[in-house]
């Protein structure tokens, strides 16, 4: 039996119409995300990665092509597709627990179940001590953990992450990618993550998709056959370095 594609994009092209003229952002992108795979998308800045993610999330209608979720055309944003941005975008008037519980509140989850799942998510994200804290009191890494927890709490089928660690310092960033590996091991979902860090992509992904300069199009796909569970210790292993080099070469062909 063929693996059913959970989320797929078919011949997506997108042009932004601006007063200064048309900006072609994506050119004929086709991809399939399936099962419990973790896919990373890398490419030069401004090549259309965020645009593609917004289209996959149903937040932006592509000029051409279509997105299918479980075989059905995706015409609007859906709960089943979770999204995390570069900025944590927490609500400053809600506590950490309140921010985590937001998707459940909107979905009308009964309070008892909401409390239970919020508690479990606080634990999973290592934020037990901060349930009552407000976002202003959190570090960048902690805030982003809340954002990831918020995107997972209602158990979406697909998780889209747009440079979620892009605003963090290098050290926190490494810790967060290990953290994400751990969380993902518990919540296996279809993940597509945009990143501009090649080691990060190789550490996390089953497949790395490489996008060429604007208008964005896929130029390469690098499978990452490294065994799981993975950890930061991999970073200096020869096969890891070789895979990173392979990704780097496909971004900038010699």
């Amino acid at each position, binding site marked *: 039996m063929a693996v059913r594609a959970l989320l797929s994009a078919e011949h997506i092209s997108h042009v932004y119409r601006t007063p200064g003229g048309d900006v072609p952002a994506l050119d004929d992108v086709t991809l399939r995300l399936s099962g419990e795979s973790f896919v990373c998308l890398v490419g030069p800045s401004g090549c259309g990665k965020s645009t593609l993610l917004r289209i996959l999330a149903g937040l932006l209608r592509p000029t051409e092509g279509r997105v299918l979720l479980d075989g059905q055309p995706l015409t609007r944003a859906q709960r089943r*597709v979770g999204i995390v941005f570069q900025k944590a975008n927490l609500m*400053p008037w809600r506590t950490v627990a309140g921010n985590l519980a937001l998707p459940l509140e*909107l979905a009308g989850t009964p309070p008892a179940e909401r409390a239970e799942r919020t508690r479990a998510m606080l634990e999973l994200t290592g934020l037990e001590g901060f349930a009552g804290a407000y976002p202003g009191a959190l570090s960048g890494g902690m805030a982003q953990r809340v954002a990831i927890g918020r995107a997972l709490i*209602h158990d979406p089928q697909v998780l889209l992450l747009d440079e979620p660690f892009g605003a963090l310092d290098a050290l926190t960033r490494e810790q967060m990618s290990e953290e994400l590996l751990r969380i993902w091991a518990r919540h296996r979902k279809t993940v597509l993550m945009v990143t501009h860090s090649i080691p990060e992509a190789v550490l996390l992904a089953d497949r790395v998709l490489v996008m060429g300069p604007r208008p964005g199009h896929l130029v390469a796909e690098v499978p990452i056959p490294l065994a799981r569970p993975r950890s930061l210790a991999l970073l200096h292993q020869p096969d890891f370095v070789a895979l990173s080099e392979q990704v780097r070469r496909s971004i900038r062909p010699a």
Partner: protein
Amino acid sequence: MDNAHLAPPVPHERTAESSAALPRARRRRWHLLLAPAFGLCLLAVWTLVARSGMYAAFIVPTPASVAERWWGLASDGSLLRHAAVTLREVLTGLLIGVAVAFWLGYWIAKSRTVAYTLTPYLVALQTVPIVAIAPLLIIWFGSGIASKVIICGLIVFFPMLVNTVIGMRGIPAELHDLLRSLEATPLQTFWHLELPAALPIVLGGLKVSVTLSVVGAVVGEFVSASAGLGYLINFGRGTYDTPLVIAAVFTLTALALALYGLAAGLERLLLGWQRANGTP
């Protein structure tokens, strides 16, 4: 808009090593006495000028005669009656003006079509001096409460509208995207995102509107009225009852301050999270 920049700078705290606890506490109390002491000085100057014989008593009455007049009005219940009339005009006008401004501001921020259609007229409305059209409003709506409520509503309208639009437009687009991806209904989006996110700026507008609303009611009462604190001022001026004018002005000020205090209290109550986030 806020008057926070008028607040005195916080004196530098000395560290525990460099200063004993007692002098520090004493210095703090001493600061609290400054403003009342200055007030007493002003009162003394006023008394001196009034007693000096430079001006007739009906031009500059003594503080004592003003207090006496105020007490007389307060004890026979007429001050309360007039204040109640003004307060009713103010609160009704405020409620209607603020509600309409918030509602319109919300739609101007949300819809380009509404913004393009209404903005020129709203700006034009703002440039019309309310004082100039007050007589017209009295002609149209009579000299009862309705005309004052309308003047009040018009004067509080603009700051509230502008702040609502700014507050709504300042909401990060990604938070809207988040709620869309969570399939929030329009009502949920309003309640869980738009209202709380815009609230700090909206409440800033409310504080401005509250003080303006008192001005609005008094303007209306000056033009034509048979009761209210503005009417009392006008009446006192006509009969050269200067103590009455001053007593009414003080009452009006107290009313405006109380309303401002309520708005500020509402702000503290609703925006507790701002302090919890470390933003003053």
